[in-house]
């Protein structure tokens, strides 16, 4: 039969360990002055290091100008995504410029072609003025074209 106050091996182990560590903690309070002072100095140095990091981060964010929004947005540990977006963002204006130039070129070509077509159509559909028949060049033109056709 199990005794009412019998401890499990784990509980006994934890209890023993707690007694040992309590002893260790008492020794921790009696550290020499120079050790505690050096630990304090180390702590201060570490905290100063943290400050420098914080200031540097702020400086980087403010110095990046137009891309400032992206820097601040991607600064929370998502450096992978940010690294991919930065070249994309800087290439975007260049791509827009090239696309714009190509579009303008195509539109201008179309305009010129349609203008020429309009002039040609107007010339072809217009009536021939009577002066044209009296023009010696016109007669010559008719002769040459006639002779070349008959050949």
């Amino acid at each position, binding site marked *: 039969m199990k005794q009412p106050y019998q401890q499990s091996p784990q509980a006994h182990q934890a209890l023993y*360990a*707690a007694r040992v560590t309590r002893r260790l903690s008492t020794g921790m309070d009696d550290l020499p002055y120079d050790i505690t002072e050096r630990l304090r100095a180390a702590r201060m140095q570490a905290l100063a290091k943290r400050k420098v990091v914080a200031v540097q981060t702020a400086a980087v964010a403010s110095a990046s100008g137009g891309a400032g929004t992206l820097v601040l947005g991607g600064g929370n540990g998502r450096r992978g995504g940010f690294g991919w977006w930065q070249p994309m963002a800087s290439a975007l204006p260049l791509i827009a410029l090239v696309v714009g130039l190509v579009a303008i070129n195509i539109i201008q070509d179309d305009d010129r072609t349609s203008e020429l077509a309009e002039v040609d159509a107007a010339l072809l559909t217009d009536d021939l003025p009577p002066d044209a028949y009296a023009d010696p060049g016109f007669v010559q033109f008719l002769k040459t074209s006639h002779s070349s056709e008959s050949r």
Partner: protein
Amino acid sequence: MATEQELSDFLKSVEKRAFKRSVYHVRNEEAALDIVQDSMMKLAEHYGDKPAAELPMLFQRILSNCTLDWFRRQKTRNALFSNMSDFEVAGEDGDFDILETLHSGESSESAEDSTRRAQILRDIEIEIQALPARQREAFLMRYWEEMDVAETAAAMGCSEGSVKTHCSRAVQALSRALTAKGIQP
């Protein structure tokens, strides 16, 4: 994100224990101070922006890594020098304790008590230093830092079963050694 005050309070709460733990591992106060300082710097520099709740686990991990780094560096040095420095530190500590006791002991009864307490502490510390490194690390993290099994396993980079085994063996070894010396902690 932990504020500067939170980080400062956290470091203040762990620095002494971290120092003593490092001393148990490396048996050299100067080296232990360097290790603790390095760990504090790394925590503040790289993880100063983490939430305050995450700091204890991060610090334990950094402290373990810094201790390991120290052992790696020691491996490359002359074994004779490290042995000599071990003897020097042990000697200085012994002298220091005795002088302290002699100067501060006005009342014979309290002096006797404090000497006895200091002696028990010293014996316990010696036995902890004598434990195998992994057992000592598991024991100190689990019972002194009061981390649970999962946290200890994460900080040590091993399974929870290994932590339990290390702790159990460490307690058995300590119990056996201290009982043999007639010490009941």
